[in-house]
């Protein structure tokens, strides 16, 4: 279909004798928001690395706007319109918050959002001149989201965007993403169920490198098997 942005078909990857992922499918449409959840070691970050072209699948294919992106250099993947937030906050600690966003904007040939708007969007307007290395953990996470937004992506991939955040910061991050919903597609890999519940979107559950369930979050949350292997019973 014409509105398909990212399509992973029957994707698998093997590291030596370990089959880390097998037979995974994911279709992300234009301006869609979806989450990938699962217990530790389920293969969420590995799957994200396949979706961003960082890892090459040993079976299946990952296509973005029809292009096979496996093995492409990172900068070319970014220029195709895929932005990524890493699991560990990856900012430029020697540069100020404002310069971090400027450097991010220079990565694309046609930045649209001014730096001031990006600062407001990630609630760092008052910290513009602060060195990024001096920010609190949660603020670094927001700054990195701001940097990803600066390249005007078609698809934003977030690897545990709320890791290490306080409950208030987690909620603020979810609200931020909901405000951005509809501007571009977002795929978030997350552990924090409160965050996923707040987003309330299409969700893929991974378990031991395979798809366990997929569907709207309220169906996922009610699913017996998902509750057994991941969410737990109340």
């Amino acid at each position, binding site marked *: 279909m014409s509105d398909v942005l990212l399509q992973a078909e029957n994707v698998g990857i093997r590291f030596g004798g370990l089959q880390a992922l097998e037979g995974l499918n994911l279709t992300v449409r234009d301006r869609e928001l979806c989450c990938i959840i699962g217990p530790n070691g389920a293969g969420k970050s590995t799957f994200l690395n396949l979706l961003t072209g960082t890892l090459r699948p040993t079976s299946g294919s990952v296509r973005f706007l029809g292009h096979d992106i496996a093995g492409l250099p990172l900068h070319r993947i970014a220029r195709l319109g895929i932005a990524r937030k890493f699991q560990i906050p990856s900012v430029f600690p020697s540069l100020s918050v404002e310069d971090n966003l400027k450097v991010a904007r220079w*990565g694309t040939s046609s930045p649209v959002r001014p730096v001031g708007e990006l600062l407001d969007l990630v609630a760092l307007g008052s910290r513009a001149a602060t060195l990024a290395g001096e920010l609190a953990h949660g603020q670094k996470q927001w700054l990195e989201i701001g940097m990803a937004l600066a390249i005007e992506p078609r698809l934003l991939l977030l690897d545990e965007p709320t890791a290490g955040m306080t409950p208030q910061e987690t909620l603020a991050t979810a609200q931020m993403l909901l405000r951005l919903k509809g501007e571009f597609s977002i795929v978030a890999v997350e552990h924090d169920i409160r965050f996923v519940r707040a987003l309330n979107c299409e969700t893929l559950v991974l378990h031991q490198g395979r798809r366990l369930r997929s569907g709207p979050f309220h169906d996922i949350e009610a699913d017996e098997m998902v509750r057994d292997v991941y969410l737990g019973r109340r």
Partner: protein
Amino acid sequence: MIARDRNWLLIFAVCAALAVVYPFIADGYQLTVIRDALIFGLFAASLDFFWGRTGILCFGHAAFFGIGGYIMALVTLNDAIPLGSLLGILGAIAGAAFVAAIIGYFLFFGGIRGSYFTIVTLAMGVICQQAAVSWSSVTGGDSGLIGIPPIAFDLGEIHVDLSQDLPSYIFVASIVAVVVLVLWSLSRGRWGAVLTAIQDNEVRAAALGHNAPLRLLVTFVLSAAIAGLAGALYVCMAGLVAPDLSGLLLSTEVIVWVAVGGRGTLLGPVLGAIAIQRAQQTISSFNPSLWPLLLGCVFVVIVFVLPDGILSIYARLKSLFKGRRQAQ
């Protein structure tokens, strides 16, 4: 303009003023000593532009200085080549840049960074020095090439002749000033900010759309080209070129000049090179064997007392006085 840039420009202006006044108070010999030290300063600034901006240490930077020197010598010693000095300078710049482009391409696009890059460039320096010794039919072997004429060329109505001390001093000082200013402008602008980002986190910079290997390669090539220019100027002033000019000792010395002057400051390495050259000549005139020992001591003291180099003295004094004023 931020305070750091204002301080840099102030120090640059003071240095430029001293460079203008110096010919009025120095004799011919002193002028040539400072002129040669300025050339080494240009060489140090070239290394600093790469090392200071990218955090990647090139341990064979003298290879580019030597390549520039040999190309300049071969071109100017060949009477058949018209505009010898001018073509020699351009050839030296292009030759050093070409070698850096070839080596840098495989290293940067091959993902070689950090200590691996340093080791490979160290080997490159050793190979260049050995090539200069072994390829004696071209390079003159161990003895090198002598009788290299001073820079002289005609450009239309303009006649450039640097056989005298004062014109050669003015020419070298002007080139150093212009190159340092251009490198500083590049460093504080968009190019410098992206290089700082790559130094901080190359994967993050690439994930934002920056072609990090290409940026590093261009910076390396530019740095090598300036080192080649410095080599070309030096051999014309000294009148000879020898394998030592691309050797490990000079590669080590230039690292010391940058570290003593202040890595990442561009102006500091120039001052570091001048200070150490002057000290070397003064101390060696008393006792030649004393210099290596003193150089080692100076380096250790600088690393402990002024880890950001001698250029940080100004900022330290400024913050000291500011602190005292606030205490009163």
